[in-house]
Structures are given as structure tokens and as C-alpha cells.
């Protein structure tokens, strides 16, 4: 049983939160995230969700309050974007280092300066190394579905790692689409109530988040990697279970579109994936063997799954909506690292596009494919990192 609603990505996340039933919510408004927490507040006001809503005075406090509530054994939720995520930065490794289950929606937005409210992945990608799982979605339905899966993943006893569900600002967060909302019972069957490993109980006092010396610190960090390893394993399983219950295919770690026989593949994250598929289809009809590989899980990074798809591909384009200044796009670095040691002769170009909300048009994507094809034909890459769509 499900209901179909014409809603945007932020509303889809809010509906997911309503069904997931976190006990404590703390968040601070920022465009393009704000309508998530507004909608969640409305659900509480209307009696559709029973949760403590802490009216914090900043994002730093939002995550700190969530941290406190998880210590007390609660399931929590927060959401942010851009400057807000940067402001939370200090808290991010405190949450992950304490192996606290938690889900945060990130409505992606570029980083100032120059200030912008529009979308790219710079905000969450630059938090890559804070120990959070990062899942990138491409539309409102996937945002909804992924929030549900994210809690199951985060709360798994072997994972116990917080998750960011990243949705592109405006393109996903504010664009209305038809979204299927399952009924509450099905959600509860999929996602059982949260069972904390440890929580505040005066009868058995613990000290939460201790200090350690060099003789112990590394083991804690290694244990976080074990959590990531477990997540890598579990993400496809959870997606499969979700698909079985709700009848919608899920991407798992990656989604490979027409890649089986592809010679030219564009690797993407987020909402541009849909457009890329349309472009790949069009180029296929003109005889080019094109495909699209979407990375849904950026952390943990699915190197093995990626290599399985890409190892025989002749030309690879990696599309980044972020940039690591002084080098290249983050996804570019990661995909190349995953392919290191692959013996096939391949041409790889890292494309940078869509920064600060600039449209990535079908013609831009076509141009990227052309550049890949050309590199394969010439057997060389003229420019390994290329900005696409710059003003002339």
C-alpha cells in the first residue's frame, strides 16, 4: 500500500522523518535545507510525529544537541546545507568517533565566497574525511527511500556510523516530483525501533567520549574503518531488502546504466545522473556505446564495485560538482585511485561542472562524451582536468 504525492525532495525527506519517528530533532534553518525542518516542525505541530524539537541557536548546537540525545539513547535527526555544515564541522568527527548512529540530510549548496545559495557538492564533499557515511541521491523518491535505508544502516551494530543523505540544492530539494510514500506499517517493518548499545543510565555510569593516549587512539580510528567496511557490505543488502519490501529498485553502492557493453562511461553523483542517462541514450542511438555510472555511496567508496564496471571501458569521464583546489575534483581522484593497477588501456578525463548551481545542460554532457571519445581516438588526453560550461 502506498500513497502518491507530488512533492519536492525536502518534503520527501520530511515525510521519511515522519515515518522513521526520531525521538529528538534539532536543526537550524539554512537555504536550501530549511523547508525540511519546517515541514518536520509542522508534522509535530499537527500531531503526525511525536518528537522533541530542540530550537537550537546554531548548526553547531544542532549537532551537539543531537549528540546529547543519542547519548541518552534516542534516535535523532538533523539537516543542514553549506555554511551550516561547515559550522557543524567540529561536531562531525565527535559523532562519528563515538560511533553514534544518526542521519543528517544535506541539501547541497556551494560554499561562500562568493556567497551563493545554489547547489554543488563542495559542502559535503569537503567533509568527506569526518567519518560519516555519505549517500548522494538523484531525485525526491530516492531521497525518501535513502533516508529510510540510512537509519537501518547507521543503527546496524556492525556499522554504528552516522550517515549524510545528500540531495542537490533546488534541483532535488525544491523540485516537485511524484513520490510514492509507503504506509507507516511497512516502514516500521523495514526499520525496527532503535536499540542503543550504550546510553545514559545513572544505575550504570559510563564516561562517554573519553580521552586516550597515542597507545590507544589508532585502534579507535581503525574501528571506524571497520564500521565503514561493514557499511560497504551492508548497503547493497539493505537496498535489496528495501526493493523487496517496497517494490522499487535501489542503487546500492552504485548504479550502472547501460555500462555492460559501454566503451565510454560518465561517472556522476546526484541529480545530473538523470540528464546524463538521457544523453547517453541519445548518443547510443547514433551508434556510440555510452553508459552512465552513478556513485551513490561516496563514503564508503565502492572501489571494487566501480572497477568491476569500469575495468574494460575505453574512455571514462568523471563529473565533479566540487573542486579540490590545487588538484582536481574529489570524485576524479577517487575513481582514478580505484582504477590504479587496472591494466586496460584507458583514457580518463575529470570534468568540473555545475559549481554554484550552474546548469549542466544536455549539450554540456554531450560535449563531455565527445571529449572522451576524442581522447580514445587520439589515444591521449589533452587536458586531464577540464572545467565545462565556463563563460567565454
Amino acid at each position, binding site marked *: 500500500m502506498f500513497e502518491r504525492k507530488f512533492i519536492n525532495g525536502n518534503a520527501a525527506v520530511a515525510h521519511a522523518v515522519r515515518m522513521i519517528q526520531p525521538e529528538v530533532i534539532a536543526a537550524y534553518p539554512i537555504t536550501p535545507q530549511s523547508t525540511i525542518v519546517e515541514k518536520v516542525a509542522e508534522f509535530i505541530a499537527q500531531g503526525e510525529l511525536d518528537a*522533541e524539537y530542540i530550537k537550537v541557536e546554531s548548526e553547531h548546537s544542532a549537532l551537539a*544537541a543531537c549528540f546529547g540525545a543519542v*547519548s541518552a539513547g534516542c534516535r535523532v535527526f538533523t539537516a543542514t546545507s553549506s555554511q551550516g555544515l561547515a559550522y557543524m564541522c567540529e561536531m562531525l568527527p565527535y559523532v562519528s568517533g563515538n560511533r553514534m548512529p544518526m542521519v543528517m540530510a544535506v541539501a547541497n549548496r556551494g560554499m561562500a565566497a562568493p556567497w551563493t545559495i545554489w547547489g554543488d557538492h563542495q559542502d559535503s564533499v569537503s567533509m568527506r574525511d569526518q567519518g560519516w557515511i555519505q549517500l548522494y541521491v538523484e531525485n525526491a523518491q530516492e531521497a525518501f527511500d535513502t533516508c529510510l535505508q540510512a537509519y537501518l544502516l547507521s543503527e546496524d551494530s556492525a556499522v554504528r556510523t552516522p550517515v549524510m543523505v545528500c540531495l542537490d540544492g533546488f534541483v532535488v530539494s525544491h523540485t516537485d516530483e511524484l513520490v510514492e510514500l509507503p504506509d507507516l506499517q511497512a516502514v516500521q517493518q523495514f526499520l525496527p525501533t532503535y536499540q542503543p548499545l550504550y546510553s545514559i543510565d545513572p544505575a550504570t555510569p559510563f*564516561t562517554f567520549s573519553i580521552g586516550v593516549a597515542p597507545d590507544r587512539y589508532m585502534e579507535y580510528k581503525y574501528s571506524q574503518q571497520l564500521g565503514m567496511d561493514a557499511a560497504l557490505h551492508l548497503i547493497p543488502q539493505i537496498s535489496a531488502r528495501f526493493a523487496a519490501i517496497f517494490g522499487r529498485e535501489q542503487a546500492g553502492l552504485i548504479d550502472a546504466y547501460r555500462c555492460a557493453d559501454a566503451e565510454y562511461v560518465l561517472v556522476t553523483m546526484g541529480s545530473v545522473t538523470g540528464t546524463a542517462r538521457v544523453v547517453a541514450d541519445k548518443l547510443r542511438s547514433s551508434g556510440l556505446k555510452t553508459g552512465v555510472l552513478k556513485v551513490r555511496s561516496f563514503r564508503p567508496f565502492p572501489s571494487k564495485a566501480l572497477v568491476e564496471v569500469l575495468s574494460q571501458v575505453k574512455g571514462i569521464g568523471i563529473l565533479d560538482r566540487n573542486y579540490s583546489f590545487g588538484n582536481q575534483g574529489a570524485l576524479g581522484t577517487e575513481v582514478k585511485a580505484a582504477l590504479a593497477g587496472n591494466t586496460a588501456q584507458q583514457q580518463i578525463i575529470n570534468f568540473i561542472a555545475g559549481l554554484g548551481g550552474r546548469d549542466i545542460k544536455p549539450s554540456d554532457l554531450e560535449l563531455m562524451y565527445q571529449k572522451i571519445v576524442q581522447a580514445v581516438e587520439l589515444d591521449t588526453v589533452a587536458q586531464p582536468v577540464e572545467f565545462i560550461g565556463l563563460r567565454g
Partner: protein
Amino acid sequence: MINSIKELPAEELVYGSMACAGCGGNLALRLALKVLGKNTVVVTTASCLMGVTTFYPQLAFGVTCVTSVFPGTGAVVSGVVAGLKRKGREDVNVLGFVGDGGTVDIGLQALSGAMERGEKFIWLCYDNEAYMNTGTQRSGATPYGAITSTTPGGPNEMWENRPKKDMLAIAVDHGIPYVASASIAYPDDYIKKIQKAMQAPGPAYIQVLAPCPPGWGHATSQTVAMGRLAVQTGIWPLAEHEQGEFRFTHRPVNRKPVGEYLNQQGRFAHLSPETVSAIQADVDAKWDKFNSGCGF
């Protein structure tokens, strides 16, 4: 009601702390937990007292302790309060135990948010008047005239040239039900205030002056003496603001000259007689205001 330290339980809920000998902050924590008892969660943050109590394997707390980031204690407190409410454990005392830096400077925003939200918690600021954990740098609570490692002495007279931030007044202005100043040198007064804080229907803020031998430059045996002199000279009045009413809980009859307090501490050793007189004039002016009926 526990009226005297003689009535406090023998059991220590902070034991094996690595604090310096004569640490006023450690004494403030020990006494507070003896009053609050085991049904308490301590939320603490980067500070001397976190460093000396939560470093594995020498974990010193006999109650639950949650440590977190330096600017965020107020918000962590709110999260713990909300979480315990969800779990039906509103009976648990939630104590924010935080230094002056974590209270009046970097933690002020989150604390302000928590006070404004009005949740029930106790904030105990142990005030040693500088960032001791990181090596005695000045904080907003460092008093006028003090030498710290970022307000050093020397020919350019960089010593602290601004008065101590008046956090008690800031707390009162948040309209919370209970605000008090206290001193480790007046334990009976202090433990009564902790009990009032426990009974308060919302946020309770207590700032307890906690001398620090290495930071202030006095002998480890003189911690209580320094605390007492701060009160006897009128530099640190003992008072409370309860449900809108201000009152002194201990009023020095004949205030001693401030020099008796300042002259015994290394951090004030450089002060000229003129500066000591100026500090005396400030203290006198403050008491004139008190005597004309002003509170914190």
C-alpha cells in the same frame, strides 16, 4: 536539606582525578557531586577538569559523564535533557560542569540558547579566571590587572586591561529561575546553592570561584585562603538571584583592602600601588551600587 559539609556523604563521586594539588575546580566538582548524588549526568567539555577526569584509563567519575566540544556544552546539555525526557528519566540531574572560558567565551552562545529554552539543568561554572588547561591564557573572566600567558608582564604592560565579564548579570538577564555566585572557601553556602539549583524549575546558573595555584601563583596550601580573601575583600560577593529576588548570602562586615588578596598572588605581583588603589576604587564603587539596592 544538607546544611553543612559535615552532613555530606563520605562517598566520592570524583575519585582519582589528576588535578593539581590544591585545585579549586576539583574541590568544586567533588562537593557538587556529593550533594547531587548518583542520579546525575555530568556534561563537561574541554577544560582542566575534563582533562584530569576523563582520560582513559584513569576515569574519575562515579556518575555518568558526557564530554563534548568546547563551544557546545549548552547544546549537549539540551540534547541530554530532551533525550532523558523521552526516556521518562526527568528525575536525573543534568549538570553542565564548565570552566570560565567554556562559559563566558566560546560556550556563551550555546549556553545562552539553553538558558533561553528554559530546560531544567544546572550550569556550574568553575571560575579560575583563565584558560588553565592550555596554559593560563586570559579569558573573558580574567580580572583587571592579571598577568596570564597571553597578557604577560613586561615594559609594554600587556597585562589584562579589561574588567571581568559579568556573567552573573548576563545569566540574570536571561530570566532564569536561579543564579548564584559561590566560592569553594564557603562550602556550606555553596552546597545550599547547589540544592536550590536542584529545586529550580528551569535553568540554574552557579559561578563558583575556584582558585588555581599554578595559574594564580599561590601556594597549593592557600587555595581556600585565596577563595576566602576574594570574598572578604568584596571582590567576589556571595549572593543569589532567585525568582526575581536578589540577596546576599554572606556579607563581609568590614571589607578587607583588596591588596591583601592581590599581593599574595603571582599574577598580580607587578601591580603598582596606584593600580591597586584603582582596583580598590572599582570594588568600592561596585559595593556602593550593591548598597543602593542593585543586584548582580
